[in-house]
């Protein structure tokens, strides 16, 4: 396997009496696709939050390339090329769908956002439209966020996260709330785009079909710990995982 891009070592995090991460160690090779599963409150989002700087671990290191990014600000980490989407879509609620895309586009424009270049410039709009079309949400482009249904919000959130040059993409429950017949097309779309540019992907998911289909390796969380870390089939047949996460096989 190629060299690792992300190396999480002995990370701990407690919130008062709750242990959200206990001895978390994960090594993710470049270009790999990992998925995180686990019971509710197991610490999956906390993991994502620590890698992306929203939460500072109590101890442990998170190495990206050759630097320790534990405790850096989200913005700095994003600029290094680690992007993420959110379990609860994070959108600019008073802007239209298109403008949300334009924001992402403007921030990532090569020369940095400008004071003079028009945000609604035709080229930028074309780029935004192209992205929206890829995610099948172009028809909503002129709508404001509160008018959108849950699923569309989710898609836009992912679309925004994918703007710019990414090295690692963390997706927090990308398909929850997305209608069942859309889940695979969406994942196909996202994964194809990411794989094509060699991006390393880590996604959190509760839908085991998605997990088995898209990930190379699965980390199962329970109670702040990783209880299994292996290929999907192995993990899903682990009795502990079945008991706490997936439920006994039907």
């Amino acid at each position, binding site marked *: 396997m190629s060299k690792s891009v992300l190396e999480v070592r002995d990370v701990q995090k407690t919130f008062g009496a709750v242990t959200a991460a206990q001895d978390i160690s994960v090594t993710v090779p470049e270009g790999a696709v990992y998925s995180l599963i686990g019971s509710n409150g197991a610490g999956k989002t906390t993991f994502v939050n620590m890698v992306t700087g*929203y939460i500072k671990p109590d101890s442990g290191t998170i190495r990206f390339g050759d630097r320790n990014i534990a405790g850096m600000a989200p913005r700095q980490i994003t600029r290094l090329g680690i992007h993420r989407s959110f379990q609860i879509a994070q959108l600019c609620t008073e802007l239209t769908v298109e403008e949300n895309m334009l924001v992402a586009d403007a921030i990532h424009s090569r020369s940095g956002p400008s004071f003079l270049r028009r945000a609604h410039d035709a080229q930028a709009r074309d780029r935004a439209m192209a992205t929206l079309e890829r995610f099948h949400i172009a028809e909503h482009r002129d709508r404001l966020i509160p008018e959108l249904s849950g699923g569309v919000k989710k898609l836009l959130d992912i679309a925004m996260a994918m703007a710019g040059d990414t090295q690692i993409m963390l997706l927090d429950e990308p398909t929850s709330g997305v209608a069942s017949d859309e889940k695979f097309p969406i994942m196909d779309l996202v994964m194809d785009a990411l794989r094509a540019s060699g991006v390393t992907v880590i996604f959190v998911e509760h839908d085991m079909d998605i997990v088995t289909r898209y990930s190379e390796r699965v980390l199962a969380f329970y109670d702040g710990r990783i209880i299994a870390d292996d290929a999907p089939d192995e993990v899903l047949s682990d009795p502990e995982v079945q008991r706490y996460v997936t439920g006994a096989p039907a």
Partner: protein
Amino acid sequence: MDLAATILVDGLIYAGWLFIVSVGLTLVFGVLNILNIAHGSLYAIGAYASASMVGAYFALGGEAFPYGSYVAMILAAVLVALVLGPLLERGLLRFFYGRDEVLNVLVTYAVFLILEDAMKLIWGVNPYFVYEPYTLLGDVEIGPLFYVGYDFAVIAAAVIVGLAVWLTLNKTRVGKVVLAVIHDSEMSQTMGVNVQRIYLGAFMAGTFLAALGGALTAPMISVTPGLGVNVIIVAFAVVIIGGLGSVPGAAIGALMVGISRAASVHLFPEAELFIIYFVMAIVLLFRPEGLFAKTQARKI
């Protein structure tokens, strides 16, 4: 008596007054999410109402039992709350719930302007005095200094008011239901909460507290137009220091401002004008959302 003790006593007296003035503001903000500029006018109206009521009380032969004037003062505040509370909340503010914070500030600013002139139309520009209640409780001698018993009664009133509001909000079901309404009035409705009653109740309570502040102050000042203007900014500062919506915060904010102001008057009178802003800036520097910041719900 040594200086420190004087500063403490003076500070406490001022803090007691400040707290009564501020706690209603913080309550209304906490529940309705409205920073009520008209709070100062309600304070002034409370003072006028109190002056009128006490005046009427003595005019109707209250001399026989002067302590009844305290009841008249509280009744005045109740009356203000009963009249203006529903009028403002049902008649105006409710149409702006959930709107932009600054827009609501503007709405209450308009109310403030209207009430300022309305007071003039009702009570004229001549001052009202009701000094009787102020001297009724006698003197308290602390060392070489005389204080008026009334000052300590105001502190006591502040403590009672503070405890009452805090206990209601934190230790009763009503208080917890209020929390639910504050956070999400729509969801509260679908759980069966009578949201309108909560809003109205909270606003009336806030109005009552503002008016009470004025009512209790009336005996020691001359009640004149423009009384409310100065109160607003001070109350704002206290509420900001304590953290918006927090009753213990308002208490500590009032204490900090009261005592630092007293220290400044005794030790460094030149700084008195700045002291409140100074305290506020220092607190905000270290705690950007005030001492008792509202806990933010987890977003991601």
